[in-house]
């Protein structure tokens, strides 16, 4: 009888240890949700490095401007936040060069915002599903010879993953 009780105590302790010993937090290390844009040459369809300086801004709900990307030089790709409300995000791409030439193209991204949680340990965040993308480009001229030629969605799901979501084809008239 004593051996059996000893055995049962061992079983109880072992099971408690096995059930309670392991705990972990599985939050992603990169928990920022951003849409990733990549730049391509409209003629060769190859990835390109932008020689101009790029600044991206938008208009907030209260009507004030805010800069999302400030004077990025020599970029091949970049990531921008998205609005937490479903609808169209309007982004102003300002291209400028060393000759003080500049122009503004407008990018409009229609998206659906979806709240998401990874675990109770991790704060909830907003994922997005891209619906459409279009660009309103300026005419290449003396103001700025580089412009957005076209824009396509390559991966509609905007999540924690920093994978190319939108491909922007740039056109240079020089």
């Amino acid at each position: 009888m004593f051996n059996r009780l000893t055995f049962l105590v061992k079983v109880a302790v072992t099971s408690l240890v096995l059930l309670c010993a392991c705990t972990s937090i599985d939050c992603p290390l990169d928990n920022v949700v951003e849409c990733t844009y990549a730049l391509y040459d409209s003629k060769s369809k190859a990835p390109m490095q932008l020689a101009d300086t790029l600044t991206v801004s938008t208009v907030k709900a209260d009507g004030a401007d805010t800069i999302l990307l400030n004077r990025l030089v020599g970029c091949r790709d970049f990531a921008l936040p998205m609005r937490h409300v479903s609808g169209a995000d309007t982004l102003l791409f300002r291209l400028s060069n060393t000759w003080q030439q500049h122009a503004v193209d407008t990018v409009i991204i229609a998206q659906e915002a979806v709240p998401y949680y990874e675990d109770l340990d991790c704060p909830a965040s907003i994922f997005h599903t891209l619906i459409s993308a279009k660009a309103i480009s300026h005419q290449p001229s003396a103001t700025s010879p580089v412009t957005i030629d076209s824009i396509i969605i390559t991966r509609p799901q905007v999540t924690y993953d920093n994978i190319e979501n939108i491909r922007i084809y740039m056109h240079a008239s020089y």
Partner: protein
Amino acid sequence: MLLISVLPLSAQGTKAPSDTRPESQGKHAPRFTVTFDLAGAVMCAATDWGQYEIGLKARVHERWYGALELGIGCADATDANTSLHYTTRAPYGRIGCDYNFLRRTDTGHRLYGGLRVAYSPFAYDISGPDIEDPVWGGNTPFQYADVKSHALWGEAVVGLETYIWRFVRLGWTVRYRVKCSEKKQDIGHAWYIPGYGKGKDHFGGTMTIGFEF
């Protein structure tokens, strides 16, 4: 650690105990055992999640047992850091078989391995603080009620059972679980699946008291 617990039972299993073994053993051994999961009930009452589970085990051959387990899984958890709150209460069921590995089957002790197939249709509520938009401003509410889902999974079971008094048995299992399918909603995977445990875990277990007849 598992071996430490297993070895004493194996040793016991090779010799017939002389104390509280029931009168009817061997080929006249009881054919049915009804079990209740003590650990799951304690967890359900005292921790964030657990389950109330009863099981029926039937001896279909000298070493083979059929197993049916039915229960209600419950979760009521709030994370202190994120304030996310998750609740559910839903049924589940498992069916499978066990094989007794002990050389002598007339001792009443069992060291067994088995397999289960399990399923749970469930719905859960999850809520948390509003999500603030740091760029455009404004808040998005995070309140979802009656989010419906279901899960199908398999379990590999290793367990021990012994008599503690006449027809009363105490048992213990460790289970490795693998999800075969789960209906995922847009807001994410279920944090807790009734009968499975936390959605990202694979290991679980039970401690049962059983009545043999």
